[in-house]
């Protein structure tokens, strides 16, 4: 089974996945308990049967259990535009519009004038535009839309791409219009089938007998790659991305062994082929880091040598680019655990990269759920790591871009903490300021992201899409609060989210979460103070809190007790209900954060 499961990290043997899909599904259902359930409507302009079966496997592997709705063959337009009751009843969280160049109805002709081609382009775009609008209106769901892949023939040869009569040219222009829409729309993602087809090999991708016989847009062998691409988007939307790298140094970030060879003899820079390859790998990591992927070091070295290596004039990555640097002689599995702890992250969200297969094996076997890609030669590193889509970006929030700064500021706070003997004095010295307010438009993306990413400080682990968050924010039957925390080391961004549903004079807390990066800062008390203030304004007399245990949220088991709530119910799996009667005079619990 291990061989099959490896195929779900990245497919290499399409035939194996396609023939063993039932066995794999059975194994996953039994061994990978899915944490979230989503309804996914796949509306195809070509056959979707096996694509859906394989997509289901990739999602299960990522902890997402999907129910699928498939439209009748090529009925995607009708299903969306003419109120399909079955689709309505299905209530999709995601609609994937699986259309391909075969579905373009208005392709240009050689005899067309420029104006006619432009009109065709508009007509084609408008067809999709109206489908997207209708999806948003009717289902308030997320949309994944394929772009168009290139066809397998070129009427005019090379000129087909540059002349407006060319199908290649037409498809490029249509794709550009899709991208413009994507850049200006929330909850809308392009599945780059054009890339998937090219990287598979266009000539291989277009298997015409698969099209004529079975109406598949691609060769069967390409189906897993197509499904994998879509699964990457979905897992990213629901917060299943990895968060960072834990990197070895010698022969991983540079050629040579710094302790033996000396800094001046490391292969880095432009002098040799290997030096160029290591440098390009560093540049790849640095680019990812600018997207918010956090970098750490786990190396068997004296720390002094490790730092000296990173200060090599040709090293693009400097000591400052890393959050945690473990250069010592401890087992790498132990370092890995410690790094995860320092960053308040699960070991399953870190990717360990090491050229030494023995070290990879130790981490793979000793660290729970560690992610350890196999790498071979330096010239292959980028390809070998990039293909997994560990850090697939669906939303690029400001917080992500500043994430490295935030982790670094956190390290500074840890240092400062050590100089205070009284914890309260330390908290006061942080000079914390919070903004705690009902959900606001600019934070919707971040709020939705937090509901999907937070596992530890999360009382109910309820997940919301951005459109659901937007709806709740408008609904008078809810009290919503976001909390943003700043201190003298920097802005932590939005770190806490609370959603309470009002029923008569009672408030039921459906969601209470906080990012672990602000643990033990009394932010949860500041949030409670504000919630009670808002509740009082609405003449609410009682608040009910709920705690639903998961594998990861034990840290908040006693949260409501600490907040002064009384437990009124607990079932045999530990789900508990807590009650709080709002007193006439309420004294704020937070004394260290300046609010609003």
């Amino acid at each position, binding site marked *: 089974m291990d061989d099959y499961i490896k195929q779900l990290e990245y497919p290499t043997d399409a*035939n194996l996945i*396609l*023939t*063993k899909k039932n066995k794999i599904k059975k194994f996953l259902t039994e061994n990978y308990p899915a944490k979230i359930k989503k309804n996914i409507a796949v509306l195809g302009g070509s056959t979707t049967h*096996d694509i859906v079966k394989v997509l289901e496997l990739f999602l299960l592997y990522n902890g997402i259990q999907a129910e699928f709705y498939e439209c009748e063959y090529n009925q995607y337009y009708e299903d969306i535009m003419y109120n399909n009751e079955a689709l309505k009843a299905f209530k999709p969280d995601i609609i994937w519009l699986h259309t391909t160049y075969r579905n373009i109805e208005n392709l240009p002709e050689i005899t067309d004038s420029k104006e006619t081609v432009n009109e065709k382009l508009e007509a084609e775009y408008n067809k999709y535009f109206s489908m997207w609008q209708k999806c948003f209106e009717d289902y308030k769901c997320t949309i994944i839309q394929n772009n168009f892949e290139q066809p397998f023939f070129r009427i005019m040869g090379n000129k087909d791409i540059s002349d407006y009569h060319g199908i290649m040219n037409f498809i490029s222009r249509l794709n550009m219009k899709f991208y413009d829409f994507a850049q200006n729309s929330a909850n809308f993602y392009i599945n780059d089938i054009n890339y998937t087809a090219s990287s598979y090999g266009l000539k291989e991708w277009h298997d015409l007998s698969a099209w004529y016989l079975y109406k598949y847009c691609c060769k*069967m062998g390409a189906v897993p790659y197509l499904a994998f691409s879509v699964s990457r988007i979905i897992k990213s939307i629901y917060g299943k991305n990895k968060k960072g790298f834990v990197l070895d140094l010698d022969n991983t970030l540079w050629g040579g062994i710094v302790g033996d060879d000396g800094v001046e003899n490391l292969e880095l820079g432009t002098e040799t082929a290997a030096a160029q390859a290591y440098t390009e790998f560093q540049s790849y990591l640095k680019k990812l880091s600018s997207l918010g992927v956090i970098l750490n070091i786990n190396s068997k070295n004296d720390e002094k040598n490790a730092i000296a290596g990173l200060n090599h004039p040709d090293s693009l990555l400097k000591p400052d680019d890393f959050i945690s640097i473990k250069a010592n002689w401890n087992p790498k599995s132990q370092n890995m655990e410690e790094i995860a702890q320092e960053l308040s992250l699960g070991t399953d969200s870190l990717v360990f990269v090491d050229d030494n297969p023995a070290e990879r094996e130790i981490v793979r076997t000793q660290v729970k759920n560690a992610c350890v890609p196999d790498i071979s030669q330096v010239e292959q590193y980028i390809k070998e790591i990039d293909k997994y889509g560990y850090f697939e970006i669906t939303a690029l929030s400001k917080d992500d871009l500043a994430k490295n700064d935030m982790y670094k500021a956190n390290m500074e706070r840890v240092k400062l903490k050590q100089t205070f003997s009284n914890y309260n004095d330390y908290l006061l010295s942080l000079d914390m300021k919070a903004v705690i307010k009902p959900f606001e438009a600019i934070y919707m993306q971040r709020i939705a992201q937090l509901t999907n990413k937070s596992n530890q400080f999360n009382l109910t682990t309820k997940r919301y899409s951005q459109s659901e968050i937007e709806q709740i924010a408008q609904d008078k039957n809810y009290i919503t609060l976001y909390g943003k925390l700043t201190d003298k080391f920097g802005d932590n961004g939005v770190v806490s989210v609370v959603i309470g549903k009002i029923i008569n004079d009672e408030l039921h807390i459906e969601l209470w979460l906080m990012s672990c990066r602000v643990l033990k800062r009394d932010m949860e008390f500041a949030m409670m103070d504000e919630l009670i203030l808002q509740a009082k304004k609405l003449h609410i007399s009682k608040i009910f809190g709920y705690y639903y245990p998961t594998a990861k949220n034990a840290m908040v088991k006693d949260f409501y007790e600490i907040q002064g709530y009384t437990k009124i119910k607990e079932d045999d799996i530990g789900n508990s209900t807590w009650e709080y009667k709002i007193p006439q005079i309420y004294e704020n619990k937070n004394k260290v954060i300046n609010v609003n």
Partner: protein
Amino acid sequence: MNKEEVYSDLNEVFKDVFDDETITVNENTTADDIEMWDSFEHINLISAVEKKFAIKFNMKEIVELHNVGEMADLILSKLA
């Protein structure tokens, strides 16, 4: 490869694709005899057979297959 070996290999492929260890195919087996053999699984069956014997069927050949016997004969002719 003789006819017997082809049938034995084909049987493995059928068991795999339809996830059923009890399947034994003979020359008269058709889609009606195997519950899961529908038009959707047909394409996986064809791909798996092509992979197993390292051969390729063209479109006309696929359309004209009516039972396992014809499939085995076609495989033998391609391996010859």
